[in-house]
């Protein structure tokens, strides 16, 4: 790990100023991904701005939404009474991620900013356009078992590893950011980017911007929800594919539906067409199967991840079945 300057502001403005001044600076919150990457030489910031003492940890109910501070920790959020009551899907997704220890460290803002787990990104001796633009994509013709089936480019086929973000994109959350040019709100689906020609950019955050909170609008998705995570071992593993499913039922009729997938794209993958295919239909396996078929339109596999073309729709069906039965 390189030497770096370390500062620990206690005021939001000081933190933003510090970052805005220095292109080689990084915020550090939980550190569970950044320190990992710094140890391996993948990231080498010259300055770390420790934002853990900023007052951004509150979870509060406001008019029509739940506002979760960016520095609220994943574990406590997953067990927060308000979150469990209003947004159980988010709680489930958070609990499916990492380990209890990591959830006690990782923040909500940091979770969104997790970088891909693509092995080529992690090894500085291998090509990776995300780590080193122009060096090539090692995964494209390499070991691409974990990689994208949607939204990839010839520059990058990595996937976003967050579970929490899959629930948040499904729930139409909004990311609140504060920067040198003031505050702005980013719809969750616009927060993460597809790789295109600039895979080095994971999100649409601008230089100097700080995530301050995420807002999750209140909705009808308090009962029939399920986060289905398919992984290689029973716990403490990144998803092969995951599905966040939320249904609002009137009897057996689907009034409203939300669906998103993880482990399939460079960003959490919202499935709006599949949602449309669900609304107004009976909550049956047949309906779920049709929605899954819609969801998979446009999916394309590489040498080692063709299984996702079957696993993903199956996981959607399973998630919807479980959500409907909840």
């Amino acid at each position, binding site marked *: *790990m390189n*030497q770096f300057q370390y500062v620990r502001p206690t005021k939001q403005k*000081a933190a933003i100023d510090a970052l805005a001044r220095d292109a080689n600076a990084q915020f550090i919150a939980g550190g*569970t991904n950044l320190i990992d990457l710094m140890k391996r030489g993948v990231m080498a910031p010259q300055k770390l701005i420790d934002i853990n003492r900023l007052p951004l940890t509150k979870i509060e109910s406001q008019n029509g939404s739940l506002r979760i501070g960016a520095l609220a920790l994943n574990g406590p959020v997953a067990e927060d009474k308000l979150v469990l009551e209003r947004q159980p899907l988010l709680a489930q997704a958070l609990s499916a991620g990492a380990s209890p220890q990591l959830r006690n460290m990782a923040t909500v803002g940091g979770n969104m900013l997790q970088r891909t787990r693509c092995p080529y990104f992690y090894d500085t001796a291998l090509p990776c356009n995300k780590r080193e633009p122009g060096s090539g994509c090692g995964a494209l013709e390499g070991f691409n078992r974990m990689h994208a089936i949607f939204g990839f480019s010839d520059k990058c086929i990595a996937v976003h590893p967050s579970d929490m973000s899959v629930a948040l994109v499904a729930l139409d959350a909004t990311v609140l950011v504060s920067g040198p040019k003031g505050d702005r709100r980013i719809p969750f689906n616009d927060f993460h980017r597809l790789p295109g020609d600039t895979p080095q950019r994971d999100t649409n955050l601008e230089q100097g911007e700080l995530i301050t909170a995420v807002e999750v609008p209140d909705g009808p998705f308090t009962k029939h929800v399920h986060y289905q995570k398919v992984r290689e071992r029973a*716990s403490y593993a990144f998803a092969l594919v995951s599905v966040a499913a939320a249904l609002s039922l009137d009897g057996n009729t689907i009034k409203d539906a939300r669906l998103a997938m993880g482990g399939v794209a460079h960003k959490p993958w919202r499935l709006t067409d599949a949602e449309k295919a669900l609304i107004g239909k009976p909550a049956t396996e047949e309906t779920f199967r049709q929605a899954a078929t819609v969801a998979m339109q446009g999916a394309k596999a590489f040498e080692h991840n063709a299984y996702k073309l079957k696993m993903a729709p199956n996981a959607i069906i399973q998630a919807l079945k479980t959500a409907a039965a909840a």
Partner: protein
Amino acid sequence: MADDNPEINPAEPGASHNEARRTFLKQSSLLTAMTFTPGPIVQAAAAQFDEKVAAAFEKVPLKLEVNGVKHKLSVEPRTTLLDLLREQLHLTGTKKGCDYGQCGACTVHVDGNRINSCLTLAVMQEGRKITTIEGLANGDNLHPMQEAFVKHDGFQCGYCTPGQIMSAVACIREGHAGSEGEIREFMSGNICRCGAYSNIVAAIQEVKNGGQKV
């Protein structure tokens, strides 16, 4: 600590700067010394002079409490809590099993919550209370979880054990030891390659069901 005013932070601004400074220091000290001193002394002098200056630039002050003992330290910002415990405070009970937050051997409690000490910088823990495996027993009296691990043989090689025990204590305190399944899920951040999982779960269940204060 230069809260709110990054510019007066005593830490050096980065590696490239350090390297240039160091090269300068080394060369200048060598040049002055070389004319009249034998080789080994030149080297030693250069190294020592350099290290003292470098240390002053590269370290930041840190106060924290470990197992009830208050420490006033001076550390490099890049030092992880794990490496601080093991290499500087010689509390080697906290283990390094992967260094990437993927095994749980380094689990400690910070202000009562379990975390992976390998993925946090020591300086980030300013003012916090750290408990390691060495701080769990009450003098010669083992903590009930330690007793239960011995009784149920909740280990083989012993290397993951401190992390398992710190996690197990937290698992009960958090209220995540309600059933065998819940224990297994909430202990999954602690890998035991020897595979003593069944015995670890038995130990946790005994402590939980025994109702002792953990």
